[in-house]
């Protein structure tokens, strides 16, 4: 049994903390279509939480609810113990929830470094004049922010493309730059929308390693969506399984793998 405050210890011995994000009875409709039907689950401090399910199960919708791009018709979102009023995506981002996108949303015209630096926008406080003149507080702030970004860039091993315009990068690297931008904001919760989509096996392995390292090194809480079952099972501490907008399973990878409903959803049921 999970305790609301206490958390738990994972199979590999990591201590997981209290609840960061609590989704309660979320229902999301688009016109007559119900994308999410009465789903509740939580995300705990320091864990890697996966949301999986077949195509059209409502995974991305769920992520968009968490990051404020969609507002659910019913249900409540609790972030760090407080009920969250409906807010715009940029307000959610300022609360410390960073995300990546399934189809990569980078600033194509900017260099990799500039892209990563945009992750620090919400942390910059200096006045506009001192920034333009590059004096006083602004200079100090820029240096500090730059340091954090360089650390992230080093960590994700993209130093060699720091100055390259993003538009010129191959797909796999773009995905990594997007992760770097999200990490640069030092998020309290990091949302990854299909971080491995469209990658080859080698790139997938790299990305898995980075996700694990980020979680390990910075203690970042991560929620990710993926439909590659194998990858998810290796990466995550707990898994939510969705199908047709409903939650059909929730637990450790081991529990989920043995859940009959999940097996049916993924492998199909014979109707005889």
């Amino acid at each position, binding site marked *: 049994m999970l305790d609301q405050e206490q958390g738990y210890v994972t199979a590999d011995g990591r201590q997981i903390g209290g609840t960061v994000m609590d989704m309660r009875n979320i229902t999301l409709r688009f016109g007559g279509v119900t994308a999410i039907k009465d789903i509740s689950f939580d995300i705990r401090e320091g864990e890697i939480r996966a949301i999986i399910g077949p195509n059209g199960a409502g995974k991305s919708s769920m992520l968009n609810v968490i990051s404020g*791009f969609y507002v659910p018709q019913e249900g409540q979102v609790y972030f760090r113990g407080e009920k969250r009023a409906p807010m715009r995506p940029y307000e959610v*981002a300022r609360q410390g929830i960073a995300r990546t996108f399934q189809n990569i*949303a980078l600033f194509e015209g*900017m260099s990799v470094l500039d892209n990563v630096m945009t992750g620090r*926008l919400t942390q910059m406080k200096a006045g506009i004049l001192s920034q*333009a*003149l590059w004096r006083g507080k602004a200079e100090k702030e820029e240096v500090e922010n730059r340091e954090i970004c360089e650390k992230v860039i080093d960590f994700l091993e993209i130093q060699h493309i720091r100055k390259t315009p993003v538009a010129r990068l191959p797909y796999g690297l773009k995905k990594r730059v997007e992760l770097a931008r999200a990490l640069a904001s030092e998020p309290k919760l990091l949302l990854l929308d299909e971080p491995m989509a469209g990658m080859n096996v080698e790139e997938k392995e790299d990305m898995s390693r980075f996700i694990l390292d980020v979680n390990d090194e910075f203690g970042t809480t991560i929620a990710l969506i993926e439909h590659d079952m194998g990858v998810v099972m290796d990466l995550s501490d707990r898994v939510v399984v969705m199908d047709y907008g409903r939650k059909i399973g929730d637990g450790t990878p081991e529990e989920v793998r043995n859940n009959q409903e999940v097996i049916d959803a993924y492998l199909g049921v014979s109707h005889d």
Partner: protein
Amino acid sequence: MPEQLVFAMEVFLNGLMAGVLYALVALGFVLIYKASGIFNYAQGVMALFSAMTLVGIMEGQVPFSHLINAMLGTHVHHFGWHLPAVLGILLTMVVMVGLAWLVQVVIFRHLVNQEPIILFMATIGLAYFMEGFGDLMWGAEIKKLDVGLPQGINLWIDETTFNIFDYGFFIDNLDIVATIIAALLVGVLVAFSQYTKQGRAMRAVADDHQAALSVGVSLSFIWVMVWSVAGFVALVAGIMWGTKSGVQFSLSLIALKALPVLMLGGFTSIPGAIVGGLIIGVGEKLFEFAIGPIIGGATENWFAYVLALVFLVFRPQGLFGDKIIERV
């Protein structure tokens, strides 16, 4: 030195100066287009409106005085003060920021994610509205604008060139001031967009709305900011053109002169707006000088557009614009 060449040099210099003024208008277009993908047809009218407002504030004119007098039967026209130019410009800037906010809240907030053509149509509507609104507010008569900029022939250049070529160049002081101000303006704009947080956020919004939201950038704030900056550029252009040829309706037509500049320079490039303006300015003056007498003159009316057409055929993205590549 042959006389013709000396004349050509003078024409060339004057062309550069005229080009700076075109560039000032084109800059306003580029700023808004870069940041929000809107081609702002109203940019010329914004320059007119800002110049009218500046004159009105400096002269202590009562806004909407005709309307007030007609409705209430009163006879108010002036507050009876004359403000210094600096204060007038500051107050006008406040009005332009207010206008930027109104434009965002009343029009463009409701048109997010619409087709570019719809946004363009909205700016046409905005242009006509502001034209009428400006007249209603400040009156439609031609006004004289004097913010204390030097005008008339620059004697130093006249004398220096006379000593060298035996022929004094006529360069207007106002054009020289305009050149310096335009250079400063570009410097400030570049510093703003490259080195400030707001500038970085602006470039982010221009590039990808979704991604900008995900890093905590408020789109509506940035848009108000961009329209304010465009209002500021319009004010600078309005002051220059207004001082040169008076504040009147034809001021709004300078926007049409900015179009060929944009086609040359590219819609997305600030340096492009400057270089494009200079090329058009120099090109049309030299063309008029060299070819004009042969074909009967008045080439300045159409030269810029023909040049732009040629560019459209051979380099549709302009000199500095982003190349449009479509992957198949």
